């Protein structure tokens, strides 16, 4: 089958982020992901788009964030594109276990109230890629379909 693709564009306004989340939720549910996987993927898309608005655009409103939902034979691929400041090269190379470290001995006053978004994406998605041309930044997230879900995406396309 050929891939199925839907393109969305929102402005860099945090109030618009739930729209992308709700679209992700519905499409993942239709693709056969279970309720928890659907929630997790919605969460990752929300984190990715929020990162574009808060970090790439530093909260400036009215700038474009584009999201492609691409359903392939064996995976669901999501691309989040912005035209703001690029992410540091090592952001995706950080050790997740350091960010989500054992908190049993942790002093509460040392807990960070931010900085978990990318690590959540890395922990949940099967593959995460990032590229920047200087003008355009693209974060690609992939979640593999279970075999029976892949059948759903088969010859009917």
């Amino acid at each position, binding site marked *: 089958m050929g891939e199925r693709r839907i393109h969305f564009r929102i402005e860099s306004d*945090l*109030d618009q*982020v*739930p729209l992308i*989340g709700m679209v992700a939720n519905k499409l993942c549910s239709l693709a056969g992901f279970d*309720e*928890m996987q659907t*929630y*997790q993927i*919605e*969460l990752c898309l*929300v*984190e990715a788009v*929020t990162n574009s608005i*808060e970090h790439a655009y530093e909260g400036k409103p009215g700038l474009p964030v584009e999201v492609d939902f691409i359903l392939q034979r064996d995976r669901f691929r999501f691309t989040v594109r912005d035209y703001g400041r690029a992410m540091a090269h090592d952001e995706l190379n950080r050790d997740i276990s350091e960010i*989500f*470290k*054992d*908190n*049993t001995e*942790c002093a*509460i*006053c040392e*807990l*960070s*109230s*931010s900085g*978990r*978004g990318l*690590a*959540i994406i890395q*922990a*949940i998605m099967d593959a995460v890629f990032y590229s920047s041309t200087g003008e355009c930044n693209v974060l690609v997230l992939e979640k593999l379909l279970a075999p029976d879900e892949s059948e759903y995406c088969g010859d009917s396309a």
Partner: protein
Amino acid sequence: MDVTVEDKGKVQVLSVNGRLDSSSAKKFKAAFEPLAKTGHVCFVINLSDVEFIDSAGLGVMVSALRKVNKKGGDVKLAEPRDSVRMLLELTRLHQVFDIYDGLSDAVEAFA
């Protein structure tokens, strides 16, 4: 997203409804901070009607916990849905928040 506040004596119950995320986190702060400023240090966040939470939602709860912990207080979480509990466990924040299946259990834990 809406936050309602219920005064249970020394315990303040914040019941959150809807999505607790980067666009709504400020509403949570607006409900919590006046209470913290007037000396309340014992809080229960009722999560039973939270259908979605992200890292910003976690962030405001952590920020609340840090604020009251300095004054000898605590923030306890009540009735999180499976999806919310999953995120608390993924981020290991279940190790710093006391989490209760029942709202009344969370309130009574301050007794």
